[in-house]
């Protein structure tokens, strides 16, 4: 996609195709000879794992749609039918349900990797922003999907999330009604959510295409965060990174399979095995684990509109990240001060997730969790809006290595190669 192509057609047929549709050339240049920094570590294998996760969700989802009925009166029973009667229905549904969690686990690792090694900085801003867009689309898709079984958590989760829009002044209630197609979450809502749940994964796949296209212009960042300077710094993508990606994908699939076969309801909520009841709210409405930090932020603000705005700001901030970080050094390996705040930030996200999973009045070690969530929300926003701009200006980074090859191979090897 960038730089001169190294593809040489080997046969008359390949030459014939290349002159008409250079798809083999594209595959060759992007997946075979593509020069990739030689120092990529385990955390760089999650892009491949995520592509796998998307494929699994689409394939299992298409199969589930063959048996599912999007009707408020029939949806719950049709899911039970998939679990009990459809051949291997239990397996396919558990892969799909746990697949969502495995998808988000991988995306969070992928995002924290980007945050740590500064992969969002110039010239990779658009890769990051497209990634945030994929993340938002994933959240929407996961939310729509969670509503489909039409259990208690499905129904009340849908009620709470769609009511977020009613916080918008003046037109908010109209937007909520428009989303519902009724005066409350009901059959009309379920049908449109099913339609959108089927659509969005293909939009995600398209944005993933743009994400990878944008990646192939500057090429991968790397744990040192320094630019590739000579061919010595790189290895061809195949076989070095195809094999590395495949190996770690296998490990990830083992973890995935462990959940599917040994604890398929680990991420689930027992309340969702009760059919939806519009008259009884479950004692505690808890979203899926991957949305908990944002849920904690929403609940920590004692004002409806402000709560929704804070949650929205937490997401919009991610888009602006490339311009909030003022440091010229990409990798936190060479930023001793920011690195410590990064780990506090990572712990903060987990802590917010914990607060979101507990009831509103919960107390831990004598401290009301709502206070903890408030402090956590302040730190989350301050990390991006205060610490990043200021520390980037005042911090003295460590000395950067001369090149990737020199850092990996040492001075002698580099000299010998020259």
């Amino acid at each position, binding site marked *: 996609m960038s730089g001169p192509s190294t593809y040489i057609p080997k046969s008359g047929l390949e030459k014939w195709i290349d002159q008409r549709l250079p798809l083999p050339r594209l595959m060759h240049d992007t997946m075979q000879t593509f020069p990739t920094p030689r120092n990529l570590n385990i955390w760089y294998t999650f892009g491949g794992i995520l592509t796998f996760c998307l494929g699994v969700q689409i394939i299992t989802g298409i199969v589930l749609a063959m048996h599912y009925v999007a009707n408020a009166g029939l949806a719950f029973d049709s899911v039970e039918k998939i679990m009990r009667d459809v051949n291997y229905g239990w397996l396919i549904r558990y892969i799909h349900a746990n697949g969502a969690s495995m998808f988000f686990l991988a995306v969070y690792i992928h995002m924290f990797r980007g945050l740590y090694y500064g992969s969002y900085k110039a010239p990779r801003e658009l890769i990051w922003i497209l990634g945030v867009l994929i993340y938002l689309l994933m959240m929407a898709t996961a939310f729509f999907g969670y509503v489909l079984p039409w259990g208690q958590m499905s129904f009340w989760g849908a009620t*709470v999330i*769609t009511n977020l829009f009613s916080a918008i002044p003046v037109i908010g209630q109209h937007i909520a009604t428009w989303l519902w*197609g009724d*005066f*409350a979450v009901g059959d009309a809502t379920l049908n449109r959510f099913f339609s959108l749940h089927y659509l969005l994964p293909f939009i995600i796949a398209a944005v993933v295409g743009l994400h990878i296209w944008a990646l192939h212009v500057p090429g991968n960042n790397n744990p040192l965060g320094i630019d590739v300077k000579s061919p010595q710094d790189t290895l061809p993508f195949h076989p070095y990174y195809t094999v590395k990606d495949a190996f770690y994908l296998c490990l990830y699939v083992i973890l995935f399979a462990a959940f599917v076969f040994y604890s398929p309801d680990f991420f689930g909520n027992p309340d969702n095995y009760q059919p939806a009841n*519009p008259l009884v709210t479950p004692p505690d409405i808890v979203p899926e684990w991957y949305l908990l930090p944002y849920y904690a932020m929403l609940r920590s603000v*004692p004002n*409806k509109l402000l709560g929704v705005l804070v949650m929205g700001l937490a997401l919009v901030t991610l888009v602006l990240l490339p311009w909030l970080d003022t440091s010229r050094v990409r990798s936190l390996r060479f930023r001793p001060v920011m690195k410590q705040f990064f780990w506090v930030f990572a712990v903060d996200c987990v802590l917010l997730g914990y607060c979101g999973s507990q009831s*509103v009045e919960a107390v831990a070690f004598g401290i009301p969790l709502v206070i903890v969530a408030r402090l956590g929300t302040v730190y989350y926003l301050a990390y991006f809006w205060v610490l990043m701009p200021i520390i980037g200006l005042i911090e003295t980074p460590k000395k950067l290595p001369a090149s990737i090859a020199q850092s990996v191979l040492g001075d002698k090897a580099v000299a010998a190669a020259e």
Partner: protein
Amino acid sequence: MTATTSDATTRRDFLYVATGAMGAVGAAAAAWPFIDQMNPSTAALALGTTEIDLAAIQPGQQVIYTWRGQPLFVRRRTPAEIASAKAVDVSTLPDPLARNANLPDNTPATDADRATKPEWLIVKGVCTHLGCTPTVSTPTAPEGEYGGWLCHCHGSAYDTAGRIRKGPAPENLAVPPYTFLSDTRVKVG
């Protein structure tokens, strides 16, 4: 061929702008059916009415009915609950408006304007924060500090007149339109 350069608006400029404007109007007109189809259909818009027999409800008891697909609280308040609701200074309330569909929009949230017959408080069982159904408070099992309801989703507490007192909910529980058909029958909607 003689080239004429002129800043004056030409016939062609006019045609470009007019065509573009018509195209934009056409695109918006074509988009509208696809947006409006999401709104409630005529069937959903047809206002439902629910008739409720109050005779079976005991003082201090709340019964939940369904109105337009959503929970409706009908609470027969005890004299103590009415007294505690009346004792509140309206100016100290987070939402000073009655939110009573039977009264003008600017009616203050006095207890008399929340429940026209003091014994009967009829409100939608939909938390004004994010739509959960609040849990009713009873003397033996209090919910929240104000004797009314507590919404467990995000901790909004309502008093015995269904007025928001604490937590993230912005408004009092909505009072739906209703008429008393007799002392023991009420029609909601």
